[in-house]
């Protein structure tokens, strides 16, 4: 077994554990913190099903962002949708036989890779050249974009320029899922691609990537506007005492 085979095996086991446990712990923190008051940004839906629709329009279409700024919206949406398709396309490296719908989306996954890259480059250009956005950017904000751009670019480069033995890569990851070690090809570009993906997984739970689970817990978006009909009390304040004794 080569060094690379063992190193990446351990790295991906560790990265997966950090990603799942880290994000899981964050979600527990979000869920356990009480929302003391009703603060939906109104106009807001008055029912739970309305809230589900509002949330869906945020998650799927980035509705609020659409209202805010069409440039950021189209770039951000192209990036996220591209990323989603690329991730789904990668499922073929983790399934045998490959599911039919994963086979069907393969060509779209390629276009998505370019859309993702274009979106990322556009977002980075805005971060560099729009004065207001440059002002609010920390080094980590630039680095995060560079990381994602490098992942997308190295992936596309393997598809179009410096090919790798993709069957061996698939054997390797199928093996990892059964705790079996198969040899990993050692093309430099593949090493870079895998290293950066593992890095992304590791920093996910301690970075702004937490916006993904965060959105679902955002009280301005996930609360129904029903404060007059339903008395809002959190499990914490309910455990203390009612706000007022019910006189008479």
């Amino acid at each position, binding site marked *: 077994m080569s060094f690379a085979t063992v190193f990446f095996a351990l790295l991906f086991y560790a990265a997966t554990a950090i990603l799942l446990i880290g994000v899981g712990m964050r979600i527990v923190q979000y869920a356990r913190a009480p929302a003391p008051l009703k603060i939906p940004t109104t*106009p*807001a839906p008055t029912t739970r099903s309305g809230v589900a629709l509002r949330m869906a329009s945020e998650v799927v279409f980035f509705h*609020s962002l659409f209202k805010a700024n069409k440039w950021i919206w189209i770039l951000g949406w192209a990036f996220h949708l591209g990323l989603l398709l690329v991730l789904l396309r990668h499922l073929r490296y983790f399934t045998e036989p490959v599911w039919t719908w994963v086979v069907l989306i393969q060509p779209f996954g390629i276009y998505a890779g370019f859309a993702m890259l274009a979106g990322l480059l556009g977002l980075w250009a805005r971060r560099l050249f729009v004065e207001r956005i440059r002002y609010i950017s920390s080094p*980590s904000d630039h680095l995060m974009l560079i990381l994602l751009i490098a992942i997308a670019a190295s992936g596309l480069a393997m598809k179009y320029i410096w090919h790798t033995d993709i069957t061996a890569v698939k054997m390797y990851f199928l093996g990892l899922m059964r705790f079996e070690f198969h040899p990993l090809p050692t093309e430099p570009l593949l090493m870079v691609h895998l290293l950066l993906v593992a890095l992304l997984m590791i920093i996910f739970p301690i970075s702004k990537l937490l*916006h993904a689970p965060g959105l679902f817990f955002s*009280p301005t978006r996930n609360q129904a506007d029903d404060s*007059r*009909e339903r008395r809002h009390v959190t499990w914490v304040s309910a455990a203390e005492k009612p706000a007022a004794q019910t006189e008479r």
Partner: protein
Amino acid sequence: MADFETPEVKEYLEIPALKQGVMSHSKPFVSKEQFQEPLGFPGELVENWQQVAVDKLGELLKTNRGLRVFMDSCVKCGACTDKCHYFLGTSDPRNMPVARQDLLRGVYRRYHTLPGKLFPKLVGAMDLTEEVLDQWYSYFHQCSECRRCSVYCPYGIDTAEVTMATRDIMNAVGKGQKYSNEIIGKAFKIGNNLGLPEHALADTLEGLEEEVKEDTGVDVRYPLDEKGAEVLLVTPSADFFAEPHVDGLIGYGKVFHQAGISWTLSSHASEAANFGVFIGSMENMKRIAMRIREAALDLGVKRIVFGECGHAWRVAYSFLNTLAGPFDFLDPRYPVPQHICEVTYDLIQRGALTLDKSANDHRRVTFHDSCNVARASRMGDIPGGQFVIPREIIKAVCNHYYDMAPDTIGEATYCCGGGGGLLTDDLMELRVKGALPRMQALREVTEENGVTHLAAICAICKSQFSKVLPYYGFQMDQIVSVHQLVSDAIVMAPRQ
């Protein structure tokens, strides 16, 4: 008149080039021991204030889900950067919502996250120094908690919540704001923000009755502490004498009179405003809110109705049930609480009021959506009712109504520039500059539609506009109460 320049109103509202630090001098007067103590806050900056602040932040993160999620979720996309009226009016980049939040987020990252502890520079984390505390004090008093940015944030991050949390932390270390805290003290001690004692209130209301009798020849009552009345009216204390607020109060009285609804004010809860929300203090907000419950029980009323006040309506509509509920002792056929506009609108719909629109023919009116009504509450049964109902009332009493530009009203409304505990003379520069986007929109309808009056349903908006309108070449009396328009149009024939 002042040592600053009023911004120029141009053809279109421009996104300004950044001018770093131009508003860092803007700070309200710091509170003193006598104003801090009644609210349960230290009288001056405590010795180990850094530790106290970091601990307080930690406590808030555990007890306020919104704050926790908002601290983590921002990706610095920039969607909010051109949405704040204070940024648009001052050009100071710290007034971009995300940059304001980052004053707290940087400290959060430094003391409460791993990357911030290990690599502070990399992730924009910063030590809580005296300088940072100073910036907090300056820029978290340049946010009117209007929530306009939260409409546009893809994660719904609400800068108002961040401002409230930071003000709460500043109060915990003994660096409070005089204006808000002094006023809260008055609400505790006397029952209203203006410190108007019971007998003065009674005199004022008696004066109003005489005035209305003189005007209309009808005996309209403005009752105080009348047990057994059907409705308890809770209204901002500015309504008792400030212009144009009092003309609104006269209007509420006429509506109740014509509808035959018995009502009363309370000297115990003679204030709808609740500045506890501005300083992010649940305890103080609750103490003020409880006075309303106590008054309702004491007077044995069946309904609670709120007068025209923006943040008061937020606290009433969104929080009152949580803070002072349950209100199962009131008449279940009515929502608790109700807005005076809901009451008037229902009466108009039922044809219970006789209105003579032509009484307002000398006015061409537009409506300013107040931020807390627009983005933090509702009226009526359907989402967005808070935009429909006041407009329908105005259209029922005026022949000439024109909306301002669509991106400046409704959920996109611009703050008047004086909300969120900033309506104080020591922040005059901020208030004038922050009014720019609204003044821009007003100028447009003035030129295009000949609008002469700006109607509002918020005591703070009304006071702010009477003060800043002249800076922009308008007249201070161009701001009117919605119920002032109702008052002028309502036909007061003696009831049969």
